[in-house]
């Protein structure tokens, strides 16, 4: 069962004509001709579609909050900043099917009453950016953006905005600051973007993959969507699978697959290799040891393995875990935005401890500091990045994977 990639042709991008041929913009037509904005919101709420950017917040509930705000100006933002290491799903969506994202954005903007939309894209995604720019132009030329879209009363301006290399700008409030021409630091929450977002106006921020589901739900109905996957985590998910598997790649699977099944879809464990562990969700994702491979990663509350962004990295027994630890902490130390002390200093200290671990100089003091630092990063940082930096490390300790700890 595929929703997002069903019309993809490997190595080719669905341009405007291709997208129309596979039924593109039918959902938007239906929405503008036959549905009130409240009906669109209700339908998506009923579908139980959850955000694919990591946290899994209900898209319908988010739209409802913004839709019910009385305000002269609201904004709609698509988050395509994707920079969690090991992820390439939003980038692939942008390259292969840019209109699918745009259609979701236009429907979303109509549903919440936004007249201005932005697509914030990772600055290194040159190819995806080019495809999206072309798609936006095609929309303007075909009355799918601009004034009186499809002869309705709905107007929408949509712009692409390129990031400049900062992981934290994927966090919605940092993204908003970046769009406003400020340093891309996160804001204190509350207020949430739904209440006070871009230029302090009510703003929806949704991940690109989340939005790519919207047209399908409008066309096929929320009931059909809710039947796919798990009842409390419905739909399909894009998995960026890499590492010790036979066929690394991007896979779309329903959300009731175990990690084992996901690995099998990617051709199974690479011949001659043995799995040490699987990491689910990129560098900020949980570690799945072999005895948990039959778990289903999902957005369900209390899931043993949260699905996060859906990166799956199969690490073989040949790999030196200490070096992978260093790769994780190097990333977080470099990407810490520097706004709060526990994260700015903590990731730095953690990095030097892990460096000593790699070089064999790890001692008792490091061990004590390590545990203190983990606690601090886990509990006292301003935004979730600090917490993210120790998710995998905590699992490494939990599963006693490094004897020095």
């Amino acid at each position, binding site marked *: 069962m595929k929703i997002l990639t069903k019309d993809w042709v490997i190595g080719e991008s669905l341009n405007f004509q291709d997208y129309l041929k596979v039924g593109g913009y039918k959902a938007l037509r239906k929405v503008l001709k036959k549905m009130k904005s409240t009906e669109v919101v209700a339908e998506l709420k009923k579908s139980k579609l959850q955000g694919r950017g990591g946290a899994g917040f209900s898209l319908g509930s988010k739209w409802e909050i913004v839709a019910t705000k009385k305000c002269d100006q609201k904004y709609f933002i698509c988050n395509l900043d994707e920079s969690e*290491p090991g992820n*390439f799903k939003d980038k692939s969506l942008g390259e292969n099917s840019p209109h699918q994202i745009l259609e979701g954005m236009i429907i979303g903007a109509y549903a919440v009453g936004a007249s201005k939309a932005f697509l914030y894209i990772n600055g*290194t995604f040159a190819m995806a950016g080019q495809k999206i720019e072309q798609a936006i132009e095609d929309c303007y030329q075909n009355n799918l953006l601009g004034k009186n879209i499809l002869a309705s009363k709905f107007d929408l301006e949509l712009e692409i905005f390129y990031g*400049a290399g900062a992981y934290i700008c994927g966090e919605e409030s940092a993204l908003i600051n970046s769009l406003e021409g400020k340093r891309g630091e996160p804001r204190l929450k509350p207020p949430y973007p739904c209440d006070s977002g871009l230029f302090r106006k009510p703003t929806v921020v949704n991940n690109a993959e989340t939005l790519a589901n919207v047209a399908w739900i409008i066309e096929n109905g929320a009931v059909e969507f809710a039947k796919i996957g798990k009842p409390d985590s419905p739909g399909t998910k894009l998995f*960026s699978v890499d590492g010790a598997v036979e066929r690394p790649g991007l896979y779309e699977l329903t959300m009731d697959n175990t990690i084992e099944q996901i690995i099998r879809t990617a051709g199974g464990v690479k011949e001659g290799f043995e799995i040490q562990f699987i990491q689910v969700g990129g*560098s900020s994702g949980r570690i799945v040891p072999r005895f948990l491979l039959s778990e289903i990663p999902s957005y369900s509350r209390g899931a043993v393995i949260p699905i996060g962004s859906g990166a799956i*990295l199969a690490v073989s027994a040949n790999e030196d875990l200490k070096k992978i630890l260093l790769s994780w902490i190097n990333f977080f130390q470099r990407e810490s935005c520097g706004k709060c002390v526990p994260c700015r200093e903590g990731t730095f200290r953690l990095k030097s401890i892990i460096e000593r671990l790699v070089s064999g100089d790890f001692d008792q003091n490091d061990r004590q500091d390590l545990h203190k630092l983990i606690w601090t990063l886990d509990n006292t940082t301003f935004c979730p990045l600090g917490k993210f930096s120790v998710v995998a490390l905590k699992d490494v300790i939990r599963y006693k994977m490094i004897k020095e700890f």
Partner: protein
Amino acid sequence: MTIQEILLQHEPEKKNILPAIKAINQNLSWVSEEAIGKIARYFGESEAYIFSVASFYDEINFNKPALLTLEICDGANCQIKDSDNIIKNVETFFKIKVDSFNNQFVLKRMSCVGRCLEGPVVKINGTIYTKMTTDKVIELIQNYLGY
């Protein structure tokens, strides 16, 4: 294009500050003190403000560009494809340290750029190269430096 010409392509609204900084960085390969001053005047902000925004992002350069900037992805996916060894080998071969700067050659680690399947990934003067090995990287560098 001159700094002023690039600036004039952007309406002086706050949301165009980063696009303007990026455009200058791309066209001139770096953002000089002079550029910061001009951007500040154009957008009606202080130089400190413009610098604080520009310096936030990895992409923006504040040093006259070295002849060669080599960035090697150290994301976990590239790491298990041996990017770490490439870094070490480049360090030894060119007698340079990661994150050290000289005006000839800058070597940096970079974060994942989503090309993991084609890893290890490196960037040389802004251009991405995939499926790298130590030998290929050294050859590329030598080509760039005109050896």
